[in-house]
């Protein structure tokens, strides 16, 4: 590289100084809020982050409820695959007309089917991105917490999915973080306790879980926070002053994504398509304001560095398989 650097400077191809381009650490964190069907918005956000090359630099994702499900989806699938799940599988699996009142809002069986279709083994193979989901223990005294002013996050339990030994446990933890109160049954995890949706902040849940990233990832200096309520409906907003060591980039929906019936339990195709597009467009605005522009998938592909093919296939983010010669040869 040294020699090419000489050529590089002699060719006078020097960057003008732009503060937003200065490299301190390029590790990003991503916080995905909960909000049921409104989670389609996060797919649009992820799509935009991928086009701008940010998604490839995200080394930790923390999510609650649908944000937790999306975190696993984004870590294990390509953008196109994640979009496909939301556009085709989610409407089919989560809006099942059945005799049960519970199932008619959010089908927990359908949710199970969606989760089992995600190649979660990737989380065990890869150390990054580190995926954390949040749930709350389903305790008898939760009703008391509702009438007292308990701090958000005080009862939240975090699960780092990459650390789990069995895929079945990862599946349960995903089901637990998304076990919407009342309409979904709580899920028993390996400690023998029952857990429910981590987004219920009235019982000490944490719907926008930034802490797992800040506390356990000192190399991350920029965190992107995705909310699923517009600024009018937003009940709790992460404050920059509370996290001085990191730069926070907020993505707040520019439109009202709807309340319980029209937003949270709305899994219709039309709604999902609309939210994906909105998430995408809102994120583009934020990234442009940061002085960023889209980059080619070529930089993230595994093609040749100097010559050869005259076209690039998008193999962005692909990792060498665990049993490859490379993986073994370099594990020192």
């Amino acid at each position, binding site marked *: 590289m040294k020699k090419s650097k000489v050529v590089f400077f002699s*060719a006078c191809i020097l960057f003008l100084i732009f503060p937003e381009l200065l490299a301190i650490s390029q590790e990003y964190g991503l916080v995905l809020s909960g909000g049921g069907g409104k989670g389609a918005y996060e797919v649009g956000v992820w799509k935009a982050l991928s086009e701008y090359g940010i998604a490839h630099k995200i080394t930790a994702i923390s999510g609650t409820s649908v944000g937790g499900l999306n975190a696993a989806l984004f870590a294990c699938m390509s953008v196109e695959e994640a979009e496909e799940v939301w556009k085709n599988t989610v409407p089919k699996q989560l809006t099942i007309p059945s005799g049960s009142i519970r199932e008619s809002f959010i089908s927990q069986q359908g949710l199970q089917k969606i989760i089992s279709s995600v190649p979660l083994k990737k989380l065990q193979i890869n150390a990054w991105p580190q995926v954390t989901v949040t749930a709350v223990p389903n305790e008898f005294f939760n009703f008391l917490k509702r009438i007292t002013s308990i701090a958000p996050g005080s009862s939240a339990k975090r699960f780092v999915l990459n650390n789990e030994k069995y895929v079945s446990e990862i599946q349960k933890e995903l089901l637990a973080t998304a076990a919407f109160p009342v309409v979904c049954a709580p899920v028993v995890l390996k400690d023998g306790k029952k857990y429910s949706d981590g987004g219920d902040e009235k019982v000490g849940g944490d719907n926008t879980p930034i802490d797992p990233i800040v506390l356990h990832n000192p190399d991350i200096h920029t965190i992107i926070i995705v909310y699923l309520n517009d600024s009018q409906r937003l009940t709790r907003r992460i404050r920059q002053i509370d996290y001085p060591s990191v730069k926070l980039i907020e993505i707040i929906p520019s439109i009202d994504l709807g309340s319980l019936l029209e937003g949270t339990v709305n899994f219709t195709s039309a709604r999902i398509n609309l939210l994906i597009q909105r998430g995408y467009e809102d994120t583009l605005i934020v990234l442009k304001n940061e002085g960023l522009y889209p980059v080619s998938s070529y930089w993230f592909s595994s093609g040749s560095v*100097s010559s050869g093919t005259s076209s690039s296939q998008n193999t962005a983010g692909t990792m060498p398989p665990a049993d490859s010669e490379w993986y073994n040869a370099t594990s020192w």
Partner: protein
Amino acid sequence: MRAHIFCASCYITVLLNIFFISCKTSALADSKPSSELSEKPLAEKAFLPATSLDDLDGIWETADGNGFEYPFICDGRKYLRYYFRRTDDTWRWQRFAANHGIILSSLWQKRFACAPEVYEGRFMFPVADEQDMQYAIKIVQENSHIYGSEQYLIPERILAGNLAFFVLSEDRKKCIENGTFHTMSTKFPDIIAVDGAVYEKK
């Protein structure tokens, strides 16, 4: 008196600068590979500026391994890909992994986030401007080695306005740079031709 001293010191500074610049220039000229020096007479032969994008079609490379490729199609867009000789940077990645207490295969999983630090660069990459001109160090692994190459993707539209920068031999098999490549960018300054660099069509 003070004014005289000031003038004298300025004069000495200018002289010293001229001396150092001339030394540096001659050192640079001396460091040029012999293959490039022997190619110099080419410039005196009949070389003509490219007149169409088709003239640049193909992969062109210098003896040093620097080169460009056109058309380079990515995400449905056409670019001129300008690349510098790739280097074996395995040691850089090994050193970074050791310094951070992680194994290389784990570091590889977050290579895009760590690359600017691994290369001790001052800028984040990949980086693009509003016209879609892009720069990064392209990183690949082959046979347990990690290679890097600085590269630019220059959109076809910008290239079309700079055809005169590429001067071709009569048989269209050799190409030299001439003058300035105007990037029209707010992030990338114009590119000045490298004297003596001869690209051969592969």
